[in-house]
């Protein structure tokens, strides 16, 4: 699919840039950014108590996604390219700001009149952060990291993703009940972190 490529360099670039490749951590994370954006749309489009369910999925995906980035991507990016530690410091500052908005949002009832403006403010922060990662961190990561390493990182991100309930619990009809049954976000983060670390350990071998 690389067209009139010349030699192996071109083939390697083609593999890395395949948007469907599960073994490319950048493609995977960009797709997660898309899913997060879509979940924001779903919460925004819902009314009153209907917001619970998409909101819960959004919180979980955000928690898992950020955990995976913090555990897998940022530590590697720090040393992968010149200026990496500065780039990562700025991304972490954005994440921190977004987490503060997220914490404020968690305190609110979804029917609260301030819920939607707070949600939109969080969305703005998350989208700007995601775009900054794509432009200033991921682009360099892809340029400086071997396909093998990118694949290893992708496996760790997928392991974290697998811990997130992305669909409503089957058999539970009420959104409120769903929310109460759902684990607290700190537990989601812990589980995602454990999954990532275990995947990385397995990959590196004994």
């Amino acid at each position: 699919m690389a067209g009139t490529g010349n030699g192996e360099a071109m083939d390697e670039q083609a593999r890395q840039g395949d948007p469907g490749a599960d073994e490319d951590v950048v493609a995977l994370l960009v797709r997660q950014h898309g899913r997060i954006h879509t979940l924001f749309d779903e919460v925004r489009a819902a009314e009153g108590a209907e917001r619970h369910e998409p909101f819960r999925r959004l919180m979980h995906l955000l928690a898992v996604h950020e955990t995976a980035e913090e555990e897998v991507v940022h530590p590697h990016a720090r040393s992968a390219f010149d200026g990496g530690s500065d780039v990562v410091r700025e991304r972490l500052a954005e994440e921190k700001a977004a987490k503060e908005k997220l914490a404020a949002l968690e305190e609110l009832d979804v029917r609260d009149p301030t819920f939607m403006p707070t949600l939109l403010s969080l969305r703005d922060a998350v989208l700007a952060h995601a775009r900054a990662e794509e432009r200033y961190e991921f682009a360099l990561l892809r340029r400086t990291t071997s396909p093998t390493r990118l694949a290893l990182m992708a496996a760790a991100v997928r392991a974290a993703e697998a811990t997130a309930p992305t669909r409503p619990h089957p058999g539970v009809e009420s959104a409120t009940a769903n929310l109460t049954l759902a684990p607290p976000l700190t537990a989601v983060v812990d589980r995602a972190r454990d999954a990532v670390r275990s995947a990385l350990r397995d990959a590196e071998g004994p």
Partner: protein
Amino acid sequence: MTFDPLEQRGIPLDRQVRGWRELNVTPIDPDASDPYTRCRVITMNGIEVEAILFSHQLARNTVDPEVKRGLAEVRYVEAQQQKAVNWLLPGVSSVLETTIAYEQVAVDLTSWIARMEPDPYLRQAYEFGVLEDFDHLYRYANLYEMIEHRKAEAIVDGLTEVMPGRPTRMHHRHPFDNVRDPYDKAATDPLSKLHALTVLSAEQQTMNFYMNTGPTYMEPIARQLYQEIGLVEEEHVTHYESLVDPGETWWEQLVNHEYNECYLYYSFMEQESHPKVKALWELHLNMELEHLRIACDLMRRHDGREPEEVLAPQLPNVLTFEPNKEYLRELLATQIDLTTLGAGYVREAHERFEQMQQRLHDGERPPSDRVIDQHREMFDRDYRQETEGPHPVASERA
């Protein structure tokens, strides 16, 4: 319609330059804004870019330094207008999201103009072109879901359908066959001049956008798709610019440009739902009225003619962004298999067309087909949003 731009007083030119604070416009919301607000922004950006480029060409053909300085002064304001307009687009949008919005503009702007165009030959040119932009929207929408896992309906919001048009692979014609016959400046309806200028400006901006942003993508399929569609935009600019009578003098063309800007800012001010954007359209209209007055003076001085001779007696019906779904379905059902031969249209793939196709495709599937192949591999389907039922052409159904 009572608004006559020739009768209105605008803002004096020496009060039109804005400082940084005024230029620092607040971007529109990427999700919660009316998609047609974004379409109006993209359209006016293309119009201002054309105004700037046209003025530069005119200046390069102007000897009198005083006239050159006058052109430079208006052009600087137009450059500020372009900044104020285009900077309404939000930085969080990806290039591909903006691209999909560009194609929505091309589809609904060209459709509306085709519907309103009084001259049948010109209308055919718009009807022919719009089915190609419609297909580009479908190709980019599939790329968007592959790369960002987002559906284009989040951008076009159900106002514009997304499905195959005339297949992009068939857009690659011999350059000779992209040159149409021009309207006759003395006989044509003045509205036709505005239509041609508007569509050619929009397509030119699209061409410039793709030729510059395409290589910012890392994904090979994205890079290649932008290359392919970018080349079709070159054909479209050739197609639309050849509709304009080359016998119009430079000063006449300048008057047409300024009048068209008044027409479009007025139209968009009338429909705009976003209060801040509406205020910007109104401000720019009041600037353009003065630019028009200056252009009219130049035409009188250099051509010895009255601008009223070439302009419409009154402003035409406002140009409107609205859904054109049924109209497009009718065009799909009747014109999907057209191509061009010389300045006209045919259904048969003629020799010159076949040669060009052979030379370009050379037995390979073009990127516009491969993007759909790869999408099907990932999702077991293509992406489309057919809100009004199955595709009107049976062979194009999913």
